[in-house]
């Protein structure tokens, strides 16, 4: 046994932490190997970064999919860069197959639907779901639709010295953003008035975030950390502009 100091030996090797991570659910409607490949290839082409090693759950709840060869399906997914980590529902055969492939098996009824929980606050249903959440954190899943947050909408001017941040969503401003003011969003930023201050979109690193304004007069704009100052915007000055990242370069278009 390696010679570890006493206090290190006594401290626990790991901690268990409950967390909510978002997964993409591939909800299989019917299966045809060729059609499946074409559709997947198409999707991946639209958003290659999003799908690269993306953990996904294969949902096999529909009767029509109970005969599908899971190994074949998993291999197809991996071919396009996806990383299946489990199945939801499925026939007994498919579930046995999943265990052989070291995939997690999620019974359909254990999937937490946050939306229901939120809209039905006092129902026993929600308590049940919360219990599930506490008892079996590994089996809980948040569907993409449940992480949707409505955009933050601001209708009054954002003045010099003020800062408005839209965490986890888009920011929509319907009044001027003054010089010396700062607007930030994890998502996109829309300013339907003169944008004269600083605008930082995709502040958590979303390179697909964009900045839109009807009057570009910004001191600085930034998307996922790539920025431009007013000096480099003369061509677009006071114009209606769409700003985005292209190959890690901030580019602007007149709209």
């Amino acid at each position, binding site marked *: 046994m390696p010679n570890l100091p006493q206090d290190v030996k006594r401290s626990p090797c790991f901690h268990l932490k409950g967390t909510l991570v978002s997964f993409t659910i591939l909800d299989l409607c019917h299966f045809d190997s060729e059609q499946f490949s074409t559709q997947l290839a198409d999707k991946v082409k639209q958003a290659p970064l999003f799908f690269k090693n993306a953990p996904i759950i294969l949902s096999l709840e529909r009767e029509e999919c109970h005969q599908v060869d899971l190994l074949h399906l998993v291999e197809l997914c991996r071919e396009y860069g996806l990383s299946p980590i489990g199945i939801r529902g499925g026939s007994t055969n498919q579930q046995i197959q999943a265990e052989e492939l070291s995939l997690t098996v999620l019974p359909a009824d254990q999937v937490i639907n946050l939306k229901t929980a939120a809209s039905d606050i006092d129902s026993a249903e929600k308590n049940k779901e919360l219990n599930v959440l506490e008892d079996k954190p590994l089996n809980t899943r948040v569907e993409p639709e449940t992480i949707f947050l409505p955009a933050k909408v601001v209708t009054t001017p954002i003045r010099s010295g003020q800062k408005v941040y839209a965490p986890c969503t888009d920011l929509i401003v319907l009044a*001027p953003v003054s010089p010396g003011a700062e607007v930030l969003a994890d998502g996109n930023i829309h300013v339907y008035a003169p944008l004269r201050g600083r605008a930082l979109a995709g502040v958590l690193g979303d390179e697909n975030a964009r900045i839109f304004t009807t009057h570009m007069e910004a001191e600085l704009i930034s998307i996922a950390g790539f920025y431009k100052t007013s000096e480099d915007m003369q061509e677009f000055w006071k114009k209606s502009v769409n700003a985005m990242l292209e190959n890690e370069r901030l580019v602007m278009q007149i709209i």
Partner: protein
Amino acid sequence: MAKIIVVTSGKGGVGKTTSSAAIGTGLALRGHRTAIVDFDVGLRNLDLIMGCERRVVYDFVNVINEEASLKQALIRDKRTENLYILPASQTRDKDALSKEGVERVLNELANDGFEYIVCDSPAGIEHGALMALYFADAAIIVTNPEVSSVRDSDRILGILQSKSRRAEKGEHVDEYLLLTRYNPARVSRGEMLGVEDVKEILAVPLLGVIPESQSVLKASNVGAPVILDPESDAGSAYMDAVSRLLGEEKAHRFINEEKKGLLKRIFGGKKHETV
């Protein structure tokens, strides 16, 4: 219900005290019981402009500290009926203004039947300025037609809509832009921002444009607010602004360069002295 109006700017020396004195006096002239409160503790000069400096016994801070009653500290204006001045202390600093104290004095004024309470704010965005704007129902933003003044006005507007009592309650403070020391000749030479430029940047309704005028200096030398000189350009511009504050429609004047007629050019304009 008393209406509390703060006259503020961020930037110093733009004409807040001149405007507080003029507008407060104008409201009283129009028959409204009005108090002008000097929040510029340590640099008091509202009393100088109002010409009552020799009658100051107690001040705002004395009332806050309960060293004097409001009645003792309020100075009744000798020229204008319905008008009272609450002077600032020259010997204290702005930390003497506590939020509770200011609230108590403003409430007492309101209960006393004052219809308008005009708060002359100190420059800056620190404690004194915050206290002056905290309880405001409306704000007159005094701005000179130059970039730094406009920027500071923008800043104070942001503070107004985020740090005032109304903002904390989710309510809006009425905003009015007062463009002072306006010189149309310099605007057309491109040396100053024009009315439209300032309005565009600040996006606040325009209460009035006060021209740069000798009459302001003259008025402060004799210790009478310029609005009492109705012949003067600045005085009549302030009177128009008071009318608009009371909800009346008035076309804006003194925005464009005056076209002098031949005779005027020879003998000089008497009425509208523009510096």
